[in-house]
């Protein structure tokens, strides 16, 4: 199997804040790597370094064996091969959905508009948004926007897709509609690096899990190992922070409904 991404001993600091220390990863074609870790451990920074939004201080990053880090000149050529979707809804508000989708393939890749449009329509339909091509992003819900953002990234036909907590800003009921699209992409063999706080989704989608803490890779294991018998103490503690005692509804039947009613 071909290795698509290699991250070799990279380091990155902001001023005196060492955010990444000697991080190494590699990823084969068609595989999904999930990165988890406590807030502020450097997950976003890692993804941003991979697609050149941040410059690394040391180490190197290779895409299909070619060094892509350390250059500033033709970053856009590298980014054309690396799709990225962020946590914030980042569609272009002054363009209709279809124009959002066409911009990259047509302007950056120079592909014929009609060909891309047909493909865009197919993909919109696949994520359940066939009727939204002509609307402006502000009329969409958060979940719909993230699905469009996924389609926009996929239309670039990237070698690899980076997803940075793409459901973190969503209302809970919209999370699964977005994650289902990602699961679908994974089944189709899309190579991805995914940062997420949704542990059940992480377990379902990952071929491998990397646990990052203080900018170091603390543990690296297949999901069935990482989530059920983590090898390191730190990973254990991290996973425990996601367990919470279920509410004792039976004990206080009134309290819960009152709370729901007063919610805005």
């Amino acid at each position: 199997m071909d290795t698509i991404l290699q991250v070799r001993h990279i380091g990155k600091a902001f001023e005196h804040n060492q955010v990444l220390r000697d991080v190494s990863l590699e990823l084969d074609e068609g595989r999904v790597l999930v990165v988890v870790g406590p807030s502020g451990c450097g997950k976003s920074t890692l993804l941003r370094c991979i697609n050149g939004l941040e410059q690394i201080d040391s180490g190197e990053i290779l895409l299909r064996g070619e060094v892509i880090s350390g250059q500033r000149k033709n970053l856009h050529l590298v980014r054309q091969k690396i799709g990225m979707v962020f946590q914030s809804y980042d569609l272009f508000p002054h363009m209709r959905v279809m124009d959002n989708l066409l911009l990259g393939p047509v302007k950056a890749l120079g592909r014929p508009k009609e060909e891309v449009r047909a493909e865009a329509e197919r993909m919109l339909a696949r994520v359940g948004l066939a009727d939204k091509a002509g609307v402006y992003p502000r009329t969409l819900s958060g979940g719909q926007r993230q699905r469009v953002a996924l389609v926009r990234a996929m239309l670039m036909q990237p070698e690899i897709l980076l997803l940075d907590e793409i459901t973190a800003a969503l209302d809970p009921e919209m999370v699964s509609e977005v994650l289902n699209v990602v699961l679908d992409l994974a089944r189709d063999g899309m190579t991805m690096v995914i940062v997420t706080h949704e542990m059940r989704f992480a377990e379902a989608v990952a071929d491998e899990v990397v646990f990052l803490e203080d900018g170091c890779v603390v543990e690296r294991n297949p999901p069935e190992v990482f989530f059920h018998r983590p090898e390191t103490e730190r990973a254990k503690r991290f996973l425990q922070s996601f367990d919470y005692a279920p509410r004792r509804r039976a004990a206080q039947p009134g309290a819960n409904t009152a709370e729901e009613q007063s919610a805005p």
Partner: protein
Amino acid sequence: MQDSGVSILFKGINFQRLLGGLWVTLRIALITIGLSLALGLVFGLIMLSRRKVLRGISRAWLEIVRFMPQLVLLYMVYFGFARLFGWDLDGETSAVLVFTFWGTAEMGDLVRGAVSSIPPHQRESAEAIGLTPMQVCRHVLIPQTVRRLLPQAINLSTRIIKTTALVKMINVTEVLKVGQQIISQFYRLREAPFWVYLTIFILYFIICWPISALAGWLEKRWA
């Protein structure tokens, strides 16, 4: 025939004279607006500069221009500078200089505001789909800046048009001055000032209202 009320406006060429005065006002305003918008774009970029010194200087300029009553500036240039340096500035030129000095600063601040109100993620997500820096500006940043800027720039234009009424104070025969001349021509008529000023008011309204409405419409459309 006894002169009365609104009819004095239509005696002889009085109304044409008022319109002529209005044209003087508008001419000053239009030149000022053109210069202010163009120079303001440049000034706005200076305000956004990475260099602290440039940002500091431009900020200071804006503050000074805002504190200073335009009339004082106008007097300073027309009466002060002309004497001091022996310049032979006519009223219109002085007015254009002073109002451009002010309009450029205000326009610059609008540009600065519009550019910095675009979330940084817009640039990043445009970069993330592989656009070149030029394409990012052209397709993502500039269109959004223009949408925020244009309604405000139009509002600034109406403010400039209104402010040009001040040139009467430096002996430019604009619409107010003509109005006063007409009033003194009918000094025996008690209601003359009312009708003359009402007419001037309506003339200003006819010019400024559609412009304002356009700004409002654009703002809503692009919200």
